[in-house]
């Protein structure tokens, strides 16, 4: 027995270290490659003197204040509003038929890549967009679209709305994963029996435990919304753009010395994200303090009916904006000539699809290989880590695992160029493997975020019982724990797959542009603004990410059709 435990330790204990290495190595090397130029050290450009000059020129950029303000407001607004919507939907409707419909509508929308969703959304809301066309000219009198700044507005409101539409499905999925690990339903029943309203009762008895499980995903949404590039390019302002978009612009400037300023900007963006998280954390403490007093006061109702309606309406609008946006992409991909104010194209044609045919299938194949490989590695490492943590009480736990989330909190632009240099130096720059390993840096944390809490919240009394019946740890893992966690595991894989499908900068930088995925193709084509081709690639990209989610929803429902408590993802 003892000897067997020794072997056990040897077999699993190294996995957390391997995982940390897979994450930390690229991240730290990449950050070093960013920090050095920010302080003026870039031998390739002939600058070696350490100084603060680069930061001075960053401070002198007249757009800095606006860029920073945009980054902060879009980050906080998008995060707070999406969290609010998800909370209201869940609080008001969980367990009802309407909730299941909303869930079915929203969950798959998570897989819609941000760029595709943003394009669809832009076409809906712009002055010459679908909504305006539906109402013109018979109602509005607009023979020509009005010259108003809706998309790319200086306050970033269009961009914030687009982000909310995408983050609501993400947070909802995280809440659902957390719900399957809590006894929220029972708590709510008890609360309602005590006379609490649906929303008030849920907020008072279930929300605190759910939030502790989705805290990290919320931080990720915050960091992501503050530093997103593709959505900001499509929906955000450009005079000036957000800080992250400006960093990319500096990176791409033919005057190579701007690369130093880009590095300084990247460092500033990094610090900004950290500061925002600290502020959010303080907000959490305040809400917890106020919330506790509110709970103690014992009030049974708080605008319950209104909040239910608001939550449901917001959920429907969110789903509708993405679904209608996608419908717009579908139409554009088949459209012939289509001008304002026509609601539909003059004619339909298969030409856009036919023209894209060969390139499209190659790119789809490449996308699938990379996504599948990186997701499998990520799930293997994640389960290995979690199981090692459980078996040996290895205290890799919360604090060290925060390091795992760094790639989601560090803007991609901050460390990818440095990472590229690292891979070049080791001679590993070409081919698919480095790209897969780089995707892993981003896929792993999402898989971990998605799977970690459900895995840890699993009731270990099952394991105790199984051990008492003579099952070894492996048997417990394979025969009891993983099957019971099938839904969260599949969800985690689907999230990982979607994350990989959506990666643009890592594929472009590390693959040297030689690997063409649906996303790199779509973004490159987006530069041309041809809505037909954007429609084709946006839809292909969406489909690639959608399939795993279908599996994640359908497979547990099918396999556990006779196990009611296990069905929920």
């Amino acid at each position, binding site marked *: 027995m003892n000897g067997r435990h020794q072997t056990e330790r040897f077999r699993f204990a190294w996995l957390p270290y391997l995982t940390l290495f897979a994450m930390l190595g690229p991240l730290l090397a990449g950050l070093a490659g960013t920090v050095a130029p920010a302080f003026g050290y870039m031998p390739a450009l002939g600058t070696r003197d350490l100084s603060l000059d680069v930061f001075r020129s960053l401070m002198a950029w007249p757009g800095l204040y606006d860029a920073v303000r945009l980054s902060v407001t879009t980050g906080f607004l998008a995060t707070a509003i999406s969290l609010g919507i998800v909370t209201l939907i869940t609080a008001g409707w969980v367990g009802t038929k309407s909730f299941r419909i909303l869930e079915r509508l929203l969950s798959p929308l998570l897989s819609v890549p941000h760029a595709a969703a943003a394009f669809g959304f832009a076409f809906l809301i712009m002055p010459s967009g679908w909504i305006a066309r539906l109402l013109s000219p018979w109602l509005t009198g607009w023979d020509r679209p009005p010259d*108003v*700044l809706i998309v790319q507005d200086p306050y970033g409101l269009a961009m914030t709305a687009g982000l909310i539409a995408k983050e609501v499905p993400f947070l909802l999925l995280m809440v659902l994963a957390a719900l399957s690990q809590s006894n929220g339903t029972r708590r709510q029943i008890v609360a309602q029996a005590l006379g609490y309203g649906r929303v008030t009762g849920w907020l008072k008895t279930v929300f605190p435990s759910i939030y502790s499980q989705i805290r990290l995903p919320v931080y990720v949404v915050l960091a992501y919304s503050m530093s997103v590039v593709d959505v900001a390019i499509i929906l955000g302002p*450009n005079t000036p753009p957000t800080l992250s978009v400006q960093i990319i612009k500096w990176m*791409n400037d033919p005057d190579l010395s701007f690369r130093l300023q880009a590095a300084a900007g990247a460092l500033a963006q990094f610090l900004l994200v950290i500061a925002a998280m600290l502020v959010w954390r303080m907000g959490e403490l305040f809400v917890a303090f106020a919330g506790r007093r509110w709970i103690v006061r014992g009030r049974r109702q708080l605008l319950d009916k209104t909040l239910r309606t608001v939550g449901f309406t917001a959920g429907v609008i969110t789903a509708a904006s993405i679904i209608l946006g996608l419908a717009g992409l579908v139409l554009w991909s088949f459209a012939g000539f289509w001008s304002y104010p026509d609601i539909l194209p003059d004619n339909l044609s298969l030409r856009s699809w036919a*023209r894209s045919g060969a390139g499209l299938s190659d790119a789809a194949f490449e996308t699938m290989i990379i996504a599948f490989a990186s997701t499998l590695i990520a799930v293997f490492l994640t389960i290995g880590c979690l199981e090692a943590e459980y078996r040996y009480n290895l205290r890799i736990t919360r604090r060290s695992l925060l390091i795992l989330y760094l790639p989601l909190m560090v803007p991609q632009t901050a460390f990818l160029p440095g990472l590229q240099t690292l891979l070049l130096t080791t001679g590993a720059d070409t081919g698919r493997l480095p790209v897969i390993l780089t995707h892993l840096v981003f896929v792993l944390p999402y898989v971990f975020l998605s799977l970690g809490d459900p895995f840890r919240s699993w009731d270990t009394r099952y394991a105790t019982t199984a051990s008492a019946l003579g099952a070894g740890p492996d048997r417990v893992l394979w025969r009891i724990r993983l099957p019971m966690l099938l839904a969260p595991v599949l969800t985690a894989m689907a999230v990982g797959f979607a994350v990989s499908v959506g990666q643009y900068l890592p594929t472009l930088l590390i693959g040297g542009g030689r690997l063409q995925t649906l996303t790199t193709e779509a973004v490159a084509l987006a530069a*041309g603004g041809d809505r037909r081709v954007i429609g084709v690639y946006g839809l292909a990209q969406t489909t690639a990410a959608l399939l795993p989610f279908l599996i994640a929803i359908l497979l547990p429902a099918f396999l556990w059709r006779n196990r009611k408590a296990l069905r929920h993802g």
Partner: protein
Amino acid sequence: MRVPFLAAAFFAFAIPAAADPEPSDWDTVLAEAQGQTVYWNAWGGSTATNDFIMWVGERVSEDFGVTLEHVKLSDTADAVSRVLAEKTAGKDEDGAIDMIWINGANFNSMKQADLLFGPFAEQLPNWQFVDVAGKTVQTDFTVPTEGFEAPWAMAQVVFIHDTARLSEPLGSMTEILDWSKSNPGRFTFPQPPDFLGSTFLKQALIDLSEDPSVLQNPVDDANYDAVTAPLWSFLDELTPTLWRQGRAYPQTGPRQLQLITDGEIDLAISFSPNEASTAIANFQLPDTARTFVLEKGTLGNASFVAIPYNSGSKAGAMVVANFLMSPEAQVRAQDPSILGYNTVLNMAVLSTEDRAKFDALELGIATLTPAELGTVQAEPHPSWMTRIEADWIKKYGVSE
């Protein structure tokens, strides 16, 4: 960082670089090119261009056994970054990029940083057909190319207008300003530093200047303010009359076409005299779109291909560059139903048969004849563009 250090140490002792192919020994180049794969990094924003590059790939594979892969860029500077990163990391052989569609400031940066292979262009067999005297194929934005890049297409500024809304051509920048004042919100240009937006600024400067010849020399602090003053007062008047009052701009040239079709603007700038015709055929513009040039003429330049110093397929890349200058490729590129880029070749030195193929091309519905295109103005030195871009961004790019 032990791993990169060890690897760097290993690379320091690696075998020295293999000899580069000699472009004048063409048979050896052809033999070496056989079986090579050429990664051509080229802007991927235009469906017509992408289709043309795919055709080039088929042809060089048939004739020379060269495999061509089009790496679609959203910004040519991405490729410049990549080569720079490779140089930083000491990867001096078999880099990821074998050929770049390039010109202007990107070429100038790469040439100055010694990131290019060459000279090779003027030793290519098809160089004999190139119109060296009549077209700006040996200077790129006034910077001598010195054989470090091979030309493959000529471009000239034209303005696209929707005749359903703006029926008559506008002959000068002043007329454009007057029209925009009486039709606010109906004109815009791609946001500098997008190359086409910067081109609009240069075009305005040339058209408004008394003496544009000073722009041929590098920018000089002594005369910069005086030379550019007419441009800034023009823009101060124009900007509030632009689409969205100049508070937002389209990010690329083709995006303007979508805006015309959406009915949001009536006038756009283009760097390809055939773009409008091709776009009409592709449903991207209404069939009422036409083009015009300014009375004093418009800017023209050439598109080139260059080969990074660390390409592992230099022979293959030269074969592709040479094929691009062939009459066969040039006549296809000039066909408005396919691409509509003007040729770099000299009609006088072509065989009668080849010349007949060019003569047989029909002009697109919105394309001007060579005579109508009028005077081609020379590109200013790149330093002007850099400085004007920076000032434009300071004045208008961060205004809100």
